[in-house]
């Protein structure tokens, strides 16, 4: 038995569970809001083409439209100005092996419950590593905040001075990218950066540092509370869009039974 047949057996026996980390593509799901004079992120939309009727007697189908960055989605390096010249930086160019790999989950849910602007810092990462070991190279790191359980206006949490939601500090992202060599970083919020991320130096540090270094982002994830701190496998292939800067996608995790 090779590793793959072992895994297949474990999957069929239910020893490995498949966890869906994806929100449903829904017209009313929040998207990031930019100042109105900027171009905006298109909401998910669906128009019926036929439904077993005079428009097509035996079939039902829809035309759908959205942004590359609508719903649970993947950010490619070319999404950010810092990553514009990264080799293979668009979703259609990224090597397929990047889309499946090990994942570490840093639980910030307690802190985020206390503080809407909760920050993931190097200290929190150090603490996590003291318990779970050093974050291995080329892994996905997900920041669990349980933010995905918020509904309505609480999700973007928009105030007069913009959105308030948790995210990483520039130092934390630098540590993950430059010292741990992670493959990508994912969050439950609408972006990989904190709601107030524009006020860091550099602004939007997760986007800036991750993509400038050819790393990937995942956002609007859900169900991170079902993942163990280590030992799960993330599957996240985006659509193969020519020169795409990102893509809505289905994100799955393989989790050893009873591990979460």
């Amino acid at each position: 038995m090779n590793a793959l047949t072992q895994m297949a057996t474990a999957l069929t026996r239910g020893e490995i569970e498949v966890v869906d980390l994806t929100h449903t593509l829904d017209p009313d799901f929040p998207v990031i809001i930019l100042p109105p004079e900027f171009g905006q992120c298109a909401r998910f939309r669906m128009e019926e083409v036929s439904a077993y009727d005079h428009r097509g007697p035996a079939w039902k189908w829809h035309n759908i439209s959205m942004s590359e960055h609508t719903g649970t989605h993947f950010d490619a390096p070319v999404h950010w100005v810092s990553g514009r010249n990264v080799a293979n930086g668009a979703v259609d160019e990224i090597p397929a092996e990047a889309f499946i790999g090990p994942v570490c989950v840093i639980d910030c849910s307690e802190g985020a419950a206390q503080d809407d602007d909760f920050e993931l810092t190097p200290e929190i990462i150090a603490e996590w590593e003291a318990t779970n070991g050093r974050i291995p190279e080329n892994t996905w790191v997900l920041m669990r905040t349980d933010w995905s359980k918020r509904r309505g206006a609480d999700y973007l949490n928009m105030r007069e001075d913009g959105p308030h939601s948790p995210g990483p500090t520039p130092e934390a992202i630098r540590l993950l990218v430059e010292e741990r060599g992670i493959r990508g970083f994912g969050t439950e919020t609408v972006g990989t950066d904190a709601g107030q991320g524009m006020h860091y130096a550099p602004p939007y540090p997760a986007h800036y540092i991750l993509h400038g270094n050819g790393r990937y982002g995942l956002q609007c994830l859900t169900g991170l509370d079902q993942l163990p701190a280590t030992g799960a496998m993330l599957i996240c292939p985006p659509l193969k869009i020519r020169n795409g800067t990102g893509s809505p996608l289905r994100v799955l995790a393989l989790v050893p039974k009873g591990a979460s």
Partner: protein
Amino acid sequence: MTDPLARPPKKNPQKVQTVPVLPPSFRSRAAMGLTAAAAEGRFKLQHCAECGTVQYPPRDACVSCLGLELLWKDTDPVGELIADTIVHTSPNLYFRRQAPWRCGTVRLSAGPSIFCHVHGDCVKGSEVRLLSRLDRAGQGVLIAIPKETTPNMADDPELRELGADPKHRRVLITDGRQPGAPALAKALLDAGAMTVFVGEGETWRPYPERSALEKMDGVNLMPLDLTDTSSVVELAGEIGGKVDILINNARFMRPGGVLARGDTAFARDEMEVNYLGLMRLAQAFGPGMKARGADGINNAAAWVNILSINAIANDPAYGSFNASQAAALSLAQSLRAELRPGGVKVMTVFCGPTDDDWYQDVPPPKLLPGAIARSVVQGLRDGVEDVLCGDVAKDYAERWRQDPRVLERELAGDVG
């Protein structure tokens, strides 16, 4: 005085829906001038260019001199009610249902004697004023009303039938996020609307108008996003059977013409809201309203679109937005024809620049929300098809009538 109109009772669910029937709608081409005038709420008659005779009914030649140049001109509407009668039955289904129906003859100071509909408060032998109104078939007719206002004058059944008065009617305002939404809702409630439903999209995104709307008695906030077909269909399923007046105030706009932008993203948003949004609304709410055109005191009466006057002539400073307004205006013409069999009117409120963020660098005069709200209510009471709200809209419409090409060139501004 007129008896005040009682609040309609709740509908009897065991009764068959009253099917809309229309008054006779055939008119000669000459008589259409009356319809065109009524669509704008203007009292116009044919004036002979040759001899000055004012004549009625409209004809192809002057009754005095056989002159062929007959101009539709605003005319003094005052006259004397010299005869009246009450129709108790009619071979026409519409008037049979409306009976008893008062009509009479008015001798106008301007000359002609006119057989017309007569308000219940008009006294035979006294002075009256003629109004040009659209009947349920969308054709111009004349009604005599007392020269001085009488109590509950608007509640007269003949006058009410020739308008779309918000009193006791249920209204849907489609976009609560528009800065003018609270003023509009308030004006309709003040005008006696029974309920004002206000649509709101993207409730996950706060907006300042919400707190004002929430506080109003009679306002019901309902989820509605004109760009999302499923949301429009869902709301129509919920309240489609009790929307008597639909006011589409949704608007997406960004400054700039064709070359300013370099992409189609905002243009697409403009079409999604301003044009396709109207179409989605019409497909979801139109059939129900058309079927309810004869549904008692609070029958479906009117569909209102609030558009920019630049729908008729493009100002390139907002060129892309204005193109979406032209598209919406054209679609509204189609909708008007399609709703006509139900007796439901389609009205456009044409606005000049509004006093909001998107016209901030345009010099005054600019429209305040209260002015638009007053225009909507007045337009509904008068049952017109076109309302020109504010001086800019009136000025553009007048210049457009004189010469559309000159107006186009003037709006384009100076070169260099």
